[in-house]
């Protein structure tokens, strides 16, 4: 994975894992790699990897069971709201780029409709 070195690395890895959880690539209740393995997989500092899990846990997206490891939450509601949150963010980003081009949200919606036909 290529990182933007100007933004916190933990945030970038977290977003990547969130996408995998939101899309079901990592199923509810499935085991996540251990901190060290996560560090190796993403080629990141082990402390950064630990931070990723702390933050995911804060968001209720994973839980650590003592002695067993870290697992994706089984709470489907958390995953649904994660996906919705990410989708809303994608819309905001999109509208922001459209605004830069001088295109209003209404015009943007119109363009999407035409694209679909």
């Amino acid at each position, binding site marked *: 994975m290529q990182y933007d070195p*100007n933004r916190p690395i933990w945030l970038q890895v977290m977003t990547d894992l969130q996408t995998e959880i939101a899309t079901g690539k990592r199923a509810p209740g499935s085991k996540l790699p251990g901190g060290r393995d996560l560090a190796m997989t993403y*080629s990141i500092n*082990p402390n950064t990897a630990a931070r990723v899990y702390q933050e995911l846990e804060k968001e209720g997206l994973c839980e650590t069971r003592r002695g067993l490891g870290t697992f994706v939450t089984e709470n489907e509601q958390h995953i649904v709201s994660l996906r919705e949150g990410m989708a809303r963010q994608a819309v905001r980003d999109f509208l922001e780029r459209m605004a830069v081009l001088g295109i209003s949200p209404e015009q943007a919606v119109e363009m999407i409709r035409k694209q679909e036909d």
Partner: protein
Amino acid sequence: MLESRSITKKFGSKTAVDQVTVRFEPGHIYAVLGPNGSGKTTWMKMAAGLIKPTSGEVLFDGKPVNIESRKHIAYMSTEPYFYTWMTARDVGRYYEDFFEDFSYATYKRLLERMELTEDMKTSALSSGMMAKLKIAVTLARDAMVYMLDEPFNGIDLLARDEIRQTILERADESKVLLLSSHLVEEMEAIADKAVFIRKGQLVDQVDLEQLRTEKGISMADRYREIYGHEGAQA
């Protein structure tokens, strides 16, 4: 765990390291940064107990570094240091004799991972292969402190990935890792702390994720801020 207290090294009238006080804690990977000639290597050699400071002291676990502490500090210098007749196997045996914490099994695994074989002659290695061999033999020790001087120099892109992986595999909460390199971008994601040395003096120490969060800049950006045009000259 490892600290230098106001250490200075003079070579004749030239001051290579000027009153550097710095402390390294286990569980972190530090990038030691500075342009060529800034004093990084001299500082590392003193920290490894290979050369003596003109003044000041280096403490390892609270005690001055000496022959004894070399058992716990694995240092990889930039100079080649194998006899030309040696094969990779000989290099491993040599280290095995020298360091109690050396594991030949780990060494063998690291060689394999970096696509080197035991029967390769060191005199026949390309610079990239030699660099990998040095990393393998240094990281096959189970030391408390690892100091790698320029681990990415002269190494192609793919081999750099392998070296990063190997370094990460060695890192844990009980160990201190110091990586000195002017290839700053190579260390952005694997280091969590950085120290900046300029003209023999310690000028800054930062937590990298904090730097990104609070200032929105990378380690390379901070490097440019500190060294400006003088970095480009080196």
